[in-house]
């Protein structure tokens, strides 16, 4: 999703930039030549710019939340708790070593994801 958003943002921004440059060019041409056909082009470009701007604003407003996955490891004897990042193959109730406090067995009691931003 994040990659898709980035891709479309880049595309819309590039097009928006091109439209602004074109509007500036035709406005200058209109001021210099006073040719009314330029004004029609400017009007069409403005419409296109509004369309692009709306889509760009929509994309910018789109919030994709970030998550992190954590595991909670607990000592069965003394209840000492540690929070860490789970490795591939970790599962709930897996023994993960000894307790640094009482040397009792430590078990993963939970693996979950929480929102970071």
């Amino acid at each position, binding site marked *: 999703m994040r990659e898709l958003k980035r891709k479309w943002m880049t595309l819309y921004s590039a097009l928006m930039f091109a439209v602004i440059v074109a509007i500036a060019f035709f406005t200058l041409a209109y001021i210099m030549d006073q040719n009314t056909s330029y004004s029609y082009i400017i009007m069409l470009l403005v419409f296109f710019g509004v369309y692009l701007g709306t889509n760009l604003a929509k994309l910018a407003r789109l919030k994709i939340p970030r998550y992190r996955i954590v595991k909670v490891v607990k000592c069965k004897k003394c209840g000492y708790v540690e929070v860490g990042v*789970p490795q*591939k193959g*970790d*599962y*709930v*109730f897996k023994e993960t070593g000894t307790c640094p406090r009482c040397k009792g067995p430590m078990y993963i009691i*939970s*693996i979950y*994801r*929480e929102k970071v931003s």
Partner: protein
Amino acid sequence: MDGLDWLAWFIFIMLFAYISRELEIYRIIKEIESYISLYRYIRDKAVSTVISSFKETAAKVGAKIDTRQLEQRVSNLIESVLITPEERDPFGIIAKLKHVVLIQNETLTLEVKRLLPKAETIDIENLKNLLVAAHELNYIYKAVEHIYKQGRRFKSLWLLIQLQAQLPFLSEYVKALESSLESFSKGFPIGDSAGSMVAALFINRHLPSGSESIRPEELAENTIAVEVPFNGRRVLVIKAKGPSGVTGRLDDALERLIVRRGERPKVVVTVDAAIKFEGEKSGMIVDGVGVAIGGLGIEKFNIEEITTKYGITLYAVLIKMSIPEAFSVMSKEVADSMEKALNRVEEIILERTKEGDTVVLIGVGNTVGVVP
């Protein structure tokens, strides 16, 4: 205004109405196209995740895998279809449906084993889950594209409007499947594992002191039962065998206990994840009466049949969550509610049974990342 002006005005109004309708169709088409491109992207991501997971597992077991052959096989499996039994004569349809579903499951296992003969069961089950997710995503993408193309071909505004109206709901499901890719490729618990997790917590909390390890008995394929004493009651906990991503055969396990072994439980309590309403909070615990099992309805039907025949009371505990939460790595809200769900199960057993009664507790759902 003379007649010509009126005509010009009328033509202008007609033209305006026509253009406005065309613009509306264009807007709908563009919206559907953006959804389709999102679905295509997610489908392709799923396929590449499946292929990379196969390669990782091959590297883990020291096997060599031909990439072209793998891609071909994965593509075939993703395109394969499950033909459901004929429904015009519905008599015995559940047994037929179960038969077809079991064949599909066995075929998928054989296909994965054919590609990776040395892979462990846990890896095989997780790869199967990834394949199922990719299969589902491929089907949704193709079905949506099909309706869209038909709508354009026949210039049917109504077909496009109907499709557009359903896309937000479908997108929820697609995003949920997308999130499940991460959980199954890493083997972490998902929201749907909540029922299995509560059953596992119950076993661990009430395991008699002195018994160092749990001795589960495999009652049916990938389904275990553990007997745990609880306040003078015998609690038989049934759940899928973890930590691989399986849902087990809960109906077969219950049938074995009640019909073949002659166990007569007073109540059967099912614990499962349930889809919440928009206004509800994730992790909310709800009581119920009946069998809490989703899916195709095979296990639900069979458990209802057995319990009705033997007059066993059915209670349920539901853990509420959204569709994306049910398929992605378990959210903190759901993980935090496990303790509450476990307490509610204990309350139900204490309040609705007497000492000396036998109770069956069924932890429903995919048990990925949860043992036993």
